[in-house]
């Protein structure tokens, strides 16, 4: 487990480092993943600013001057399950979690918001960026 708490400043700094040094992001992004997205953990929102497949900055509580294409919302419980090394069924990946929310109408699963077109245009890189939250959370949190 990480020494930093999920979503605190040190955690996001480590996340940025993990994403920007990830070989698969390098391959799948092809420097073309340029869509900002937000992550909402309970009532806290964080904007992940993405430029050429790299996380340029993480901005807490983005406002009117910021822009994003899509986001992921969920309770802190859902996110805590998502970032476990072996997550429980149905909170183990974003499309899985969204399906259980949107189609099965179950609670405490992550849910996608925003432009579906942009999500599907960037799916693999975006999905990898979310999966790397799990890696961030489980490798000791050393910054």
């Amino acid at each position, binding site marked *: 487990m990480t020494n930093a708490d999920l979503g605190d400043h040190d955690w996001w700094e480590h996340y940025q480092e993990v994403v920007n040094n990830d070989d698969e992001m390098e391959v799948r992004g092809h420097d073309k993943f340029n869509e900002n997205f937000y992550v909402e953990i309970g009532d806290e929102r964080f904007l992940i600013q993405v430029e050429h497949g790299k996380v340029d900055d993480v901005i807490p509580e983005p406002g009117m001057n910021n822009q994003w294409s899509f986001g992921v919302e969920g309770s802190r419980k859902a996110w805590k399950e998502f970032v476990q090394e072996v997550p429980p069924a*149905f909170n183990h990946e974003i499309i899985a979690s969204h399906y259980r929310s949107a189609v099965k109408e179950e609670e405490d699963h992550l849910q996608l918001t925003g432009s*579906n*077109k942009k999500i*599907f245009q960037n799916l*693999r890189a975006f999905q990898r960026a979310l999966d790397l939250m799990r890696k961030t959370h489980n490798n000791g949190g050393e910054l």
Partner: protein
Amino acid sequence: MSTTDHGTIEEITGKYVNVEIDGVDHRVYFEENGPKDGIPLLCQHTAGCNNQEWRHLLDDEDITDQFRVIAYDLPFHGKSIPPESEEWWEEDYELNAEQFAETIVSISDALDLDNPIYMGSSMGGNITLELADWYPEEFRALIGLECGAHSPGFHIDWLDHPQVNTTEVNAYSCWGLMAKQSPEQTRRETMYHYEQGATGVFKGDLYYYSVDHDYRDKLDQIDATECPLYAVNGEYDYLTDPDDGREVAEGVGEGATAVEMADIGHFPMSENPELFNAYLKEVLSDITGTREEPLPDVLETEDVGVKL
């Protein structure tokens, strides 16, 4: 499992069979392994994919000693080309229940199989309900992996859209259907198979899977007393979870059995072949009558001696 020694030639063979389906000739590719007089085990791939998903089962000596394992590519999938007599490029590919069930029965007939066991996953699992309802006399048993009476919500336009990289999206929209416990190498290989599908075919298959297939009010039409039906669903399958399998078995009644597979997902045969083949042996032993105890409600890894 296959060895990887240099020069090893696997026992699996691939051939083509010509099949007439609804009056149209099709050239269908299939691979097989096992004794000619073994019990035929006919394997159907998932939506938008091909028979490579079954390569580890085709290569499992414990199973191919007794069973003649046959895995085919549906028309439009893998090496089974679209029908040469049709102008198929002038319309969207779209699979419906009647066409799907008839195709399976026609392939079995063309191969002259004697009372085969049918097994399929996902859309191949769902079709066991139509096969049980319409063609029960054709099969010794039906194994529906990831089987549900209804599986809505996956007939998605983005899976065939000119402004989306459908090759990648078709694969990675399925990434979360697998359990994190499954080996990364085989999960990645499963997605690699998915990336080989023709444009529009995955979405067209999902018309059957998420729209046309709906047995919620028809399960009692199925009589599984002559042809046993097994609904075998993975714990991590978010589309058709083990409760969906139990609902099928309860709705069908006598002759139907639901089994949950722990720690595995929607592509069991390819995402974790070692674990799946071990689970499958338990089901096959129930079909052949060599198993003394009834199958448990949940098959766990320790039940079959597999360590994750």
